[in-house]
C-alpha cells in the first residue's frame, strides 16, 4: 500500500510540473498585462518600462526557469494586482474555499447517498419518483441562477440567512447548498443504481435469511458494497469542487480561491494565477490519492493488488 501511495505521489508531482508549464505559457499568450496594470492615460514608454520591470521582455524558457527556481524556494512572485506575495495571497484565500467545498461535499454526499439508497429500496414509490425528478432538476439547473434565487428567497424575502460574505456559520450555508446541488444529484443517481444492483445479490438474500431487519440489510450489508462506485465519483466531485467554486464565490462574495483566480486572470496577474493553479492542482492530486486509498478501505479486493 505504501509503495502504491508513493508511486501515485510521484506521478502527481509530474502532473504538477506539466500543469505549471501549460499555465505559464497560456497566460503569456493570452495578452498584455500592462494594459490592465497601468491607468488608461499611460504612454507606450510606460508600458515598455513596466514589461521590463516584470521580466516579460525575456524569452519564455528563461522566464519559466526563473519562475521554477524561485517557486522551489517558495517564492511565487508578487501579485501585480494586490501588491502582496502571490503565494501568501493564495494560501490566505484557500481555507475559505476548502470550507465551502468541504461543506458542500458533505451535504452532497449525505443527500446523495440517503436519497439514492432510499430511492432504490422503495423503487417505484412516490418517493422514488420524486427523487428521480429532483435528480434531473439538480443536474439541469445552472448554479448561477440557483444561487441568485436562493439569495432572493432565503436571504431577502425570508431573512433566514445573510445574502453574502463570510463570517458566521450561517454565511456558509446558502453557498454550500448551491454548490452541492449538482454533485448531490449525480451521487443520488449513482447510489440508486449501485444499490439496485447490490440488492439483487444473493448475499443480500442471505442477510435476510439470517434474520436481519430490512434496515440492517440495506444499510449495513448493502451500503458497503454500493458505496464503492459512489466513493470514486465522490472523490472526483470533491476535487472538481475546489476548482469550480468561482461562480458561487462571485455571487455570494465568498473570499475564496476561485474568485481570486478569475480576478487574477482578468487582471493578467501572472504570479497569482500561477501560484493559485499550482495549489489547486496539488489539492486535486492529493484528493485523488485519498480517493484511491479510501477505495482500498472499502473494497478488500483492491488492497491486495
Amino acid at each position: 500500500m505504501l509503495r502504491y501511495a508513493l508511486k501515485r505521489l510521484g506521478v502527481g508531482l509530474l502532473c504538477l510540473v506539466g500543469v505549471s508549464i501549460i499555465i505559464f505559457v497560456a497566460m503569456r499568450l493570452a495578452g498584455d498585462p500592462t494594459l490592465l496594470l497601468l491607468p488608461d492615460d499611460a504612454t507606450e514608454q510606460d508600458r515598455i518600462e513596466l514589461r521590463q520591470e516584470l521580466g516579460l521582455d525575456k524569452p519564455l524558457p528563461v522566464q519559466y526557469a526563473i519562475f521554477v527556481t524561485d517557486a522551489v524556494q517558495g517564492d511565487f512572485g508578487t501579485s501585480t494586482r494586490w501588491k502582496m506575495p502571490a503565494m501568501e495571497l493564495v494560501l490566505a484565500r484557500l481555507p475559505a474555499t476548502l470550507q465551502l467545498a468541504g461543506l458542500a461535499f458533505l451535504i452532497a454526499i449525505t443527500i446523495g447517498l440517503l436519497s439514492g439508497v432510499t430511492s432504490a429500496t422503495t423503487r417505484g414509490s412516490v418517493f422514488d419518483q420524486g427523487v428521480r425528478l429532483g435528480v434531473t432538476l439538480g443536474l439541469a439547473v445552472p448554479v448561477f441562477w440557483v444561487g441568485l434565487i436562493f439569495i432572493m428567497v432565503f436571504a431577502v424575502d425570508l431573512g433566514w440567512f445573510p445574502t453574502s460574505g463570510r463570517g458566521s456559520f450561517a454565511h456558509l450555508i446558502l453557498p454550500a447548498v448551491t454548490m452541492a446541488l449538482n454533485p448531490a444529484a449525480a451521487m443520488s443517481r449513482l447510489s440508486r443504481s449501485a444499490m439496485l444492483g447490490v440488492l439483487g445479490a444473493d448475499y443480500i438474500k442471505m442477510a435476510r435469511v439470517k434474520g436481519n431487519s430490512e434496515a440492517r440489510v440495506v444499510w449495513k450489508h448493502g451500503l458497503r458494497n454500493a458505496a464503492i462506485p459512489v466513493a470514486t465519483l465522490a472523490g472526483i466531485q470533491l476535487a472538481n469542487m475546489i476548482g469550480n467554486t468561482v461562480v458561487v464565490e462571485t455571487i455570494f462574495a465568498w473570499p475564496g480561491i476561485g474568485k481570486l483566480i478569475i480576478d487574477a486572470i482578468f487582471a493578467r496577474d501572472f504570479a497569482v494565477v500561477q501560484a493559485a493553479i499550482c495549489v489547486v492542482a496539488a489539492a486535486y492530486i492529493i484528493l485523488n490519492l485519498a480517493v484511491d486509498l479510501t477505495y482500498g478501505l472499502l473494497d478488500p479486493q483492491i488492497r491486495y493488488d
Partner: protein
Amino acid sequence: MQTRREFLVSSALVTAAVGLPRIGFAQSQDNITIAIGDEPTTSDQTVAWTGVDYNTIENYAEYLFPRNTDGEIVPGLAAEWTYSEDGKTLDVTLRDDVVFHSGDKFTAQDVVFSYERGIDKSATVKNRLRSLDNIEVKDDYHLTFHFSAPDVTFLPNRGAAMIASNSYFDRVGEEEFSRQPSGTGPYKFSSYAVGEYVEVERFDEYWGAVPPIAKARFIFVPEETTRVASLQAGETDLIMACPYYAVKGFDAVGDFKTVKLPVNHPTMSIVFSTQNPEDPWHDRRVRLALAHAVDTDAIINGVLFGVPQRLAFLAPYEVGYDPDLEPYPYDPEKAKQLLAEAGYPDGFDMELNYAITGRVQMNPQVAEAVAAYFEAVGVRTKLVGEEWEAYRSKYNAAKEPGSSYVALFTHGRAGSPDPTYNLGLFFRAGGPISIYNNPELDAINAEATATMDEEMRGELIKKAVRLIHEDVPSFPIYNNFAVYAMKSSVNFTPTQGFNFDLVLVKDMSFA
C-alpha cells in the same frame, strides 16, 4: 397590512436570533456598512492608481486641494495658494494644525515625500504630474510648485498626489507603512480583511469638521445582484454602483432611496477608426448618418431604465461648455439620405465591437440596441463581443494605418478635470486612448492646454469641440451616472468629482 419595514425588521430579528450579524460589527446609528464592488488593489495612498482604490482610501487620506460636495476646489491641507502670471509657479501656504493618524505633525516635508513617492509608485500620479518640475520648500508651512509648463489640470486634480507622513514612513518602514497606512482624513484606516472588507474609524483629532458616523465597514460584493440583495435584506446601509434596473424598485419603496450622481465620464460612444480609406465610415457623411440613425433617448429609457443622460459634449459646469451645441438628433430618414449621398444607398456590412466584461453595465444590451438601429437604416451589423483585455488590445491596434474598426467604447468627453485633458487623451493624434488624427484639432488643444485663463481657454475649447462635432470621429450614446442606493434613514451627499464615484463617509449621516 404589514409594511415592508415591519417585514424587514422581523426578518432582521429572525436573522439575529439565528446568530447572524456580521462578526464584530453590530449595526447601529454610529456604524455604517457599505457595499462596494471590488476591493482596492492597495491600502497605501501613495501607491493608489485605479478607481477601486479611491473608494476606501479617500476616507482616510487627502489631497492638498479638496473638492467640496458642490464640486468646488476649496481650502484644505492647502490653506491658501497663488499662481504666478505665467502659470508656472504655484505658491502654497499649508495649514499648521494638521496631525496624521499616526500622531505625526503635517509639514511641507510630508508634501515633498508624498509627491516623490507618488510619482515613483503610482502610474496615475506620475501621469498627472508630468509638467511638475520640482517642489521648493520655503519652511514648514510654505512651499512652491514649479511647473515646466502651465498645467490647467493640476488644481482640478486636487494636486494629484495624496498626502502621507514622511516621519511615519521613516519610523515604521515600507511594509508597515503600506499595511497600516496613516493619513490626514476624517477617518483613520482600521483594518483590511483580504477579499472581505476594509474598516475605518472616525479620527477625533481631525483638522476639519468631525463627521457624525463613528465607524464604517466597506464590504466587497462584486456581484451587483447580490449587492442589491444585501441592501434589501438590511445587511448593508448603502451600496455603490447600484445597477440601473434596481433604481425604480428602490425609489418606489419608502424604506429605500437612490442618489444619482452625474459623473458624466465615461461617455459611452460609437468610435470609428478612420485609418482605412476602404471603409464606408472613412467618409464623414457615413459617420454622421450613423449618428443620426440611433435614438439614444430610447436606449436610455428602454435599456438603461432612464437613469443616465446624453450630453452633446461637455457638462454645463465645465469650462468651455457650449449651450448652443445640440446633440445629433434622431433622424433615420436623414441617415438614409446621407448614406445614399455617400454612395451606399443599400447600406453596407460592418462589425461592431464591444466589451462583454468590465465595469460598464448593460454593455451587451446597448450594443445590440445600437446594432438594431444601424440595421434599420440598412447597415448590416455583426456584433463582436470580447473579454475586456482582448477588446482593449483591439482598440489600441485600431490606431494602425489600414485598420478597420468600429466599437462601442468607454470614451471621454465630459467629466474630466479639464476638457483639454480628455481632448488630449481621447482625440489627440497619439493620445493614449485615441485612434483619431486631426492636426487642426491638436493645434487648438495644445494652445488651450497652455492657457490658464478660464475664459480664453473656454473659447478655444468651444472651437475644438465644434471641430469634433462636425467631423464625427465618434458620437455619444450616453454619459455615465453613478447610482448609490441606501436605506431611507441614511443621508448621503456624493461629491461631484470626475472619473471615480467616491463613497465618502464624512458626507453620510443617519437621519
